[in-house]
């Protein structure tokens, strides 16, 4: 049989090699590390199953895993509830000031979890938190309104961090949904709520489930917030244990790696579930040859409560934490009472005199753009092949492309270090690019997959019947319809890469320190105020990026789930 070499085949081969080198090799290194015995400072050369037994069957690690899963489930449920409610109000109702709300709801995306946590420590500490002190001053009570150093505090900060994901994923789908089915329901006498629960939300199920899956996995692998606060209440999650095993003495790298494989299983199970539930993708097509927006749902008597809900969310998730970040950046040291002698502009002066800051900004922006472009291209190609040319190899590649989302950044960073330390890219900005592509490729695959699923294949079939090749149909039909999705994936990845810390910490050299590493370095040195100032600069950069893109290109970040 003659081997037919096609353009698609060549592209597919290149993709496969890229995914293998960038994604699979570091993962294999990490998994391999789980099967070694340990010395006090690293791995020995002896193979051992003991670590895997400790992690998979030991009471301690099973407790850490349970803590992580339960926390993740709670955070996911709350984030989805708030995020979907916000998305419905903005995307499908007649709530006023949608443009402003839309922008403000996304601002928490621009705050890294660590800087957000620092803000909430200042706001919510039991004795000295600004909120508690204000409450006591106003009411005369001695009660603590809210203590950030609690399980509730962990959930609170994480929910504020993840809600924009739920909002982002759901809103794009809602905005570009064909409204004829909702109209039909209302004309048949269904109430607004019934229409939402019976028509609108089920039609957005792929996007909602993609969001829930992503949030669950990301929440399960987050270690900064549960670790920093959890230490105070004797609460340990598996990711925090991974961090301790990798960075404390005695070093337990095999335990870190083995624990990483546990989180990998969670992602695999989640992905399998997603594929089964959304198997009949045609049921979720919301963009076809016909298009009809439909009229917004009238809120009527609930408009005021809805506005209060939205304003309350924005106050708690944007105004208070970002405002506190700015306040911290202008203080000489942390303090509960803001006396005149505490203020300073020194940190902003220091920032502009730090020799490496300019290099950090340049490196950060360059990596953001490059990783975004590569992730979009590779992600779309992988999802296209999976959905339009399904085969074992395309599904396997899609699966591999998504796996890194489940591996904690720290563990993946160790795998990357082992993979690339002997190569010329080590110590350069290119090793960071490889790390970012590997880490964010899952977003490119998941989001573009969801976008492709909502476009009926008939549109491409029409092009094929007119003589176009599959790649031409993809380029001329699918990609334009997915334009908003692709551009929003690009900027989503850019934002995430600007905040990336786990792998960057391990792979940055003296000349390639990105902004997030710089922030961490100052925080870790106890200089929270200077770190806050860097955090303000980083946040403003991201905000400028989003506003600029919206103003210049009319692209909205939330248009990630549907194509038009």
């Amino acid at each position: 049989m003659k081997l037919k070499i096609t353009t698609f085949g060549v592209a597919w081969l290149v993709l496969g090699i890229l995914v293998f080198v960038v994604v699979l090799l570091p993962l294999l290194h990490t998994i391999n590390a789980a099967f070694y015995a340990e010395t006090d400072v690293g791995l020995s050369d002896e193979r051992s199953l003991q670590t895997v037994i400790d992690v998979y069957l030991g009471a301690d690690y099973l407790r850490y895993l349970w803590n992580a899963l339960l926390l993740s489930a709670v955070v996911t449920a709350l984030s989805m509830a708030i995020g979907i409610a916000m998305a419905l109000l903005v995307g499908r109702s007649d709530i006023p000031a949608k443009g402003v709300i839309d922008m403000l709801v996304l601002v928490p995306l621009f705050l890294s979890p660590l800087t957000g946590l620092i803000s909430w420590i200042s706001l919510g500490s039991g004795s000295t938190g600004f909120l508690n002190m204000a409450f006591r001053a106003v009411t005369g009570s001695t009660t603590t309104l809210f203590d950030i150093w609690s399980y509730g505090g962990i959930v609170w900060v994480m929910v504020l961090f993840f809600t924009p994901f739920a909002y982002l994923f759901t809103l794009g789908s809602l905005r570009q949904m064909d409204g004829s089915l909702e109209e039909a329901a209302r004309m048949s006498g269904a109430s607004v709520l019934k229409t939402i629960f019976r028509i609108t939300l089920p039609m957005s199920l792929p996007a909602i489930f993609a969001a829930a899956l992503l949030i669950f996995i990301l929440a399960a692998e987050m270690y900064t917030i549960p670790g920093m606060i959890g230490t105070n209440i004797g609460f340990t999650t598996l990711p925090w244990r991974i961090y301790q095993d990798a960075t404390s003495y005695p070093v337990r790298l095999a335990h870190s790696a083995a624990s990483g494989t546990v989180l990998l299983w969670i992602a695999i199970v989640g992905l399998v579930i997603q594929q089964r539930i959304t198997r009949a993708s045609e049921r979720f097509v919301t963009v076809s040859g016909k298009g009809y927006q439909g009229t917004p749902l009238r809120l009527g008597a609930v408009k005021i409560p809805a506005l209060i809900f939205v304003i309350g969310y924005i106050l708690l998730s944007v105004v208070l934490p970002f405002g506190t970040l700015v306040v911290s950046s202008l203080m000489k040291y942390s303090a509960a009472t803001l006396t005149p002698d505490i203020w300073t502009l020194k940190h902003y002066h220091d920032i502009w005199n730090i020799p490496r800051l300019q290099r950090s900004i340049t490196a950060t922006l360059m990596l953001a753009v490059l990783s975004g472009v590569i992730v979009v291209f590779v992600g779309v190609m992988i999802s296209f092949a999976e959905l339009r040319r399904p085969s074992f190899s395309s599904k396997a590649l899609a699966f591999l492309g998504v796996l890194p989302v489940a591996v904690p950044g720290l563990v993946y960073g160790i795998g990357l270090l082992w993979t690339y330390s002997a190569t010329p890219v080590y110590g350069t900005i290119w090793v960071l690019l490889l790390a970012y592509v590997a880490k964010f490729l899952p977003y490119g695959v998941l989001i573009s997959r969801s976008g492709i699923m909502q476009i009926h294949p008939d549109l491409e079939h029409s092009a094929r019947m007119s003589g176009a090749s599959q790649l031409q149909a993809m380029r001329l039909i699918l990609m334009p319809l997915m334009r908003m999705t692709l551009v929003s994936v690009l900027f989503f990845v850019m934002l995430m890469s600007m905040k990336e810390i786990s792998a960057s910490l391990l792979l940055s050299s003296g000349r390639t320190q990105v902004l997030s590493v710089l922030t961490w370095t100052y925080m870790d040195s106890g200089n929270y105020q200077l770190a806050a100032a860097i955090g303000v600069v980083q946040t403003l950069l991201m905000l400028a990026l989003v506003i600029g893109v919206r103003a210049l290109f009319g692209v909205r970040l939330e248009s990630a789930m549907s194509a038009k």
Partner: protein
Amino acid sequence: MTQLHTRLTRALAGAALVAMTAGTAMAQDSYPTDPAALYEAAQDEGSLVWYTGTPINSAQKMAEAFGEAYPGVTVEVVRLPNLQQMQRFSQESASGRHMADVLALDNVSMAALIKNGFIADWKVPSYDDIVPEARMGTQAYAPFYIDTAILYNTNKVSEEEAKLLAGDWNAILDPRFKGRMAVTNQKCAVCYNAVHMFLDPKLADRYGPEFLTKIGEQQPAVYPEINIGVDRVIAGEKDFMVTVFESSVVPKWQEGAPIRWVHPSPTPLSLTSAWSAVSANAPSPNAARLFLDWWMSPEGAKVQQESYGGRSTLKSVPDNRAFTKEPWYDAVTEPYAPDLPRWEANFNADMDMWLKAIGGAK
């Protein structure tokens, strides 16, 4: 894992004592000993990379001061806590990708690197001026002492209470201090200093495991890092912290934070951290040697005392740290030196005992 890496990781588990008496195991490298010639050679290189775990602000001040003293030679500071520095340096060495010129590690890690040939032999000009215990042969040097202190917020702890804390470590068990204390469950060399002393068999009648348990009964707030605990004391969330070291708090004191510290007796005073040396495969070997020479010189020591707050190990350098002139300053009167073999053997078990006692993250 490569064989080299395996050898290295094995050696790290038990090489401290041998390495400290290794002396000049390596042959002296052939680099200029004349300061002018060394400077010229360093200028040709242009820069050096310094791996250090000390606070970035302090390290940056050192780097800037060096740059002013030696124009044309810049220092790239890469802040890496001890263990991460060891892992990265080990991996880079095993892979042949040499990035670091100067390292700053704890005594155990540095000793292991010396034993395995990863540290250059370089006798700094101030060699005879350095106290003997701050030298590992002619390869590594400890620039400053690490003390152990109790930090307190002056708005939360009265002068009478501060005097109480300054007397003896048992004062922290006073019922009046219940719920007011901050501690850390961080596992690090400086974090272990006090625990190591509390579990010294010779001091069992004063402290011992029961002492740790009683600290836990005081319901301390447990923070994952020293710096977080320090920040919470400064903010007034907790009144005092057990234990800190001067380098961790001096920068904030200099900025006017309402804090002071005391040294209860006996006071762990050690050289377990910040051992500095030139990498045997330094990409900029002349610049690295120049930097080490400067840091271990009286000029460098003065800058270090101002920026780090740690007392210099050079005999000829007086203690010019500003806070020592303050009327409240409580100097170390009864230093306690760690038992290094017991340190190495018991670190893990002792820290586990500490974590269990304070009820930190389980």
